[in-house]
């Protein structure tokens, strides 16, 4: 395991990228930070700039206007960087499939490592998803 990967797994910093979501997944992600769930005890920290991030939590369908922006945000993230698609919209475009405003699904715009389904997924599910991802990375 490279030293970079080891550092990433120790304390993954999370950047929350929402493009075309309805806010629900975003509330649940922020909810993970608040006293009841408190993911900071696992070393996860929500950061304000993508340049500090190890994990991208993506929510929402990517629309035609946002597509190039999402790509650019991913390019700005330092590598290695893992991408988590939170919610049905990010995973499968959900109810908006076929709309004129919606372009490619998220996993065709940027590479996605983990999908967390649910509309919206509960905070427990989000934490479980990220933990599963870390376990997978640890195994190589």
């Amino acid at each position, binding site marked *: 395991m490279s030293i970079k990967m080891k550092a990433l797994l120790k304390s993954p910093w999370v950047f*929350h*990228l*929402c*493009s*075309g*979501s*309805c*806010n*629900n*997944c*975003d*509330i*649940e992600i*922020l*909810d993970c930070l*608040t*006293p*009841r769930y408190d993911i900071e005890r696992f070393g996860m920290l929500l950061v*304000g*700039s*993508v340049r500090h991030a190890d994990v991208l939590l993506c*929510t*929402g*369908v990517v*629309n035609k*206007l*946002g597509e190039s*922006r999402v790509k*650019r*945000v991913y390019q700005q993230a330092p590598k290695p960087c893992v991408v988590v698609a939170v919610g049905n919209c990010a995973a499968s475009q*959900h*109810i*908006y499939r*076929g*709309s*004129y*405003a*919606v372009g490619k699904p998220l996993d065709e715009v940027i590479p996605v490592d983990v999908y967390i389904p649910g*509309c*919206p997924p*509960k905070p427990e599910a989000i934490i479980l998803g990220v933990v599963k991802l870390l376990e997978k990375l640890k195994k190589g």
Partner: protein
Amino acid sequence: MSHKVTIPIGPYHSLQEEPEFYQLTVDGETVTDIDVRIGYVHRGIEKVAESKSFDKIIFLVERICGICSTSHPMASVLAMEDVSGVEVPDRAQYIRTIVCELERIHSHLLWIGLAGHFLGYNTVWMWAWKYREIVCDIFEAITGNRQNYGMMKIGGVRRDIEDEYLPGIMKGMDDVLRALDMFKGAVLDDPVLAARLKGVGILSKADALSYSALGPTSRASGVDKDVRRDDPYAAYDRVKWNVITQKDGDVFAKAVVRILESYESVSIVKQCLQKMQKGPIDSDPKELPEGEGIGHAEAPRGEVFHYVKSDGTNSPERYKVRAPTFMNFPTFKATVIGETISDATIILAAIDPCYCCTERMTVVNRKDKKTILTGEDMIKMSQDKTRRMYKRMTGKELA
């Protein structure tokens, strides 16, 4: 010499059609112009609705906005009931009111928390969100989901509230009431908050009327309008409550309106629980005739407006949605210009444009722009200002 700089903020946000990319033009510290570009979360819901059947549309509009996820279905079923003229059973009306008001409490608590975060009072954020969990738990018990409740249905509601949950809801409301007392004391009596928020971002009554601002944004400017009273739906005409208004129109007044409104909501929920009689919850209409209908409901942020045109088939000919922030956003032109950059964040947040809209102020690099501030910088500037004022007024460091 005056030196103008443009500061881009955005574009990553959410909400139906209004995630935005702000460009503040500043001269020194003062904002001289603001431009908003929206459309980053435009999902074409109105067009998608034309291809869905009427009962699916309720689920579609539920996903317009996560925080107003019962106000949109409420307006939607009202519009469809306006087309068909279906009668809704009493018990269903009360359940609708309860769900709408619980949503208002959770939304206002969420806003208080975020406003605290923007000002540098992170404790307020954590406390407010802790008490919001009580409401989320009630939702999980009575609807099965923490958000996106799926309760509304043409002619009634989908689920009944079982008697065994009533004591739990009552107790939850009492807990919320205690939390509200705490926030009321913390906000209204705090000299630093008063100095920080009073007189900032004033929206005059004339501007509020001309922009047709809605909800707490307009009620803080003295515009006495509330759809729940003006065009009663659900059971709002059967319970006693007051429309809260304030005169000043600044950020402080908007905070006061939201806190006092939450008290009214708690009282409405309690009255509904007491008045609710056993009975059917659904009149189960079979089809929608040809015609057009209008439904509007008071969401936590203001009136949501739905227009439906049916041609007698099982999907609409046209479906129009207008979310409250669509009317509230343009008021930035009236409130932000002339203020300092460190106040811009809280003014933009004061209309409650779905919290993570302002949370997500990440910056996209643009070649031709000189200065770039990230959303984090903006929030930090705002927090530093509070810290300075706190020190000046109390002589102590803010924890």
